[in-house]
């Protein structure tokens, strides 16, 4: 209890000063200073102006769509990403390595190309869109299209977060649980889920954050109708077209603030879960 407050625990390993200094310098240069510009710019409008810029009915509708669609996409990715990770970790099947490599494709394919390709497929005259059109369901040019594009960009985050942890879950504990008569469902709920939940939450958080800001793939498939299928990043672009940098930065700042809060909440949840896991 008499321990002095210390900023850093002592360590015999060399290199803290060098690496810490470099990391802080690099982050300042490429993240903090640019973000400072984003944070300070909208206040030219004054607090009232900032508030007005982000609370017009269109801005609110766009923010709602962006966050809602990103949330739903992240949840769908949570389920399907988990299934995919499970298949890749637990089973052997032909073409597994190719499937594994394909998971990263959304990181690599330019978002605009992905958007064009998705639109071509899911438009009413596209190979799959036509099929849906016959049963009266529209995918491209509706919020469903937005959702589809966001699922695409977020998919790798969930799979790649869960996969390594799933590989590490001790098969022996599972087998022990099975010997003790635990059903498959019980094993999943009591053994596997607690182990992978922190990683799953972290992956879902990243997928969500990435999807909120996505622009390139969404504008092709969204239809971009104000109040209906217009996403928040498009509003930023629209503000820029009118030479209104402060207005654009205001919407950007609001988006960043909101998604930061969501990430923080998820991080908190993750911390609680991993503490409970250790106890």
């Amino acid at each position: 209890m008499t321990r002095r407050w210390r900023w850093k625990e002592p360590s015999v390993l060399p290199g803290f000063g060098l690496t810490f200094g470099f990391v802080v310098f690099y982050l300042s240069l490429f993240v903090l200073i640019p973000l400072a510009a984003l944070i300070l710019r909208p206040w030219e409008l004054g607090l009232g102006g900032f508030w007005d810029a982000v609370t017009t009915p269109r801005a609110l509708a766009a923010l709602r769509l962006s966050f809602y669609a990103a949330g739903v996409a992240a949840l769908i990715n949570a389920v399907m990403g988990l299934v995919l990770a499970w298949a890749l970790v637990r089973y052997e099947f032909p073409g597994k390595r190719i499937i594994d490599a394909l998971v990263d494709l959304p990181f690599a394919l330019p978002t605009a190309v992905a958007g064009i390709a998705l639109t071509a497929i899911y438009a009413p005259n596209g190979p799959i869109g036509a099929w849906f059109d016959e049963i009266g369901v529209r995918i491209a040019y509706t919020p469903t299209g937005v959702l589809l594009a966001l699922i695409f960009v977020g998919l790798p985050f969930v799979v790649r977060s869960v996969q390594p942890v799933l590989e590490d879950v001790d098969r022996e504990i599972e087998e022990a649980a099975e010997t003790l008569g635990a059903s498959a469902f019980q094993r999943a709920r009591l053994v596997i889920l607690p182990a992978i939940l922190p990683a799953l939450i972290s992956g879902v958080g990243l997928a969500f954050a990435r999807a909120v800001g996505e622009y390139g793939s969404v504008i092709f498939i969204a239809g971009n109708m104000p109040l209906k299928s217009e996403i928040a990043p498009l509003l930023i672009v629209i503000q820029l077209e009118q030479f209104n940098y402060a207005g654009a930065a205001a919407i950007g700042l609001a988006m960043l603030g909101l998604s930061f809060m969501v990430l923080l909440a998820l991080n908190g949840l993750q911390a609680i879960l991993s503490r409970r896991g250790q106890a």
Partner: protein
Amino acid sequence: MFDRRGLLLSAGALAAAGCSPRGGGDAGAASLLNVSYDPTRELYRAYNTLFATHWRDTGQGDATVEQSHGGSGKQARAVIDGLQADVVTLALAADIDAIAERGLLRRGWADSLPDNACPYTSTIVFLVRKGNPKAIRDWPDLVRPGVQVITPNPKTSGGARWNYLAAWGDAIRRPGATEATATAYLTELFKHVPVLDTGARGSTTTFVQRGIGDVLLAWENEAFLAVEELGADKVDIVVPPFSILAEPPVAVVDQNVDRKGTRPVAEAYLRFLYEEPAQVLIAQNYYRPRNQAVAQRFGTRFPQLELATIGDFGGWTEAQAKHFADGGVFDRIYQPSGA
């Protein structure tokens, strides 16, 4: 030329601090950057060759012109933010005015060349499905039940602003029309729009490739190009009885040419647009030439129709403020119901 570009690129990389992305400046070989809007790609590709020949034939040396294309407003913003354009050739005067407001070129730019510095014009026409199955001939047909209209977003596309103003011009000239009836017509029109792309080319793709909508509102030159490039078997052009005289202006960016010492060639580049060979090229690319003799040579390509002008709207400054600025008529069209 290919090698020169490569060298320039690597040189720029070595300097890392990144000087000008282009060479330019040295005597004998002039290099210009023309910052333009989307639909002029084909026109300026051809014109740059024509101008280079003209420049060499008149003993002035080599002239290469680099092109940058994008949405008109976005391109104006790039110039404002420091893109080193020697000349701008944009979709509407309001975008060049915005550059002038920041002091990069003088406010009276429109007087420095003939015809308000617009060497070519165009108009807004309808592109419909082959055989015009919905019998769309005039503006009121667009708001008939079951008709879907494709146009880009006026907030992000210069062409879409001409579309919008043409529609307004038609609505306001009808007998007994008032501002209220015109606004009502526009509100109804945009209810028939299922997809708002950010640019003219995006809208054309949506209409032709994705098969969305019954009619596309388009630049006349874009409509011709769409027929030529994407299939005469798919779409027809319908010229409405009334439309708008779309005037895409050109200007020298004073601050940039003075710093780079490219003023003479930049000015010559724009002036030569009014000469007969250039005007022929303009007509070949489906823009309406200013030179009437050239226009007549192309006869039926450019049908005569009644045209509103931007002057009828009090000029771009007024039209912009009234219709397209935040809280303007266009924004009010997209108010949530009940508000």
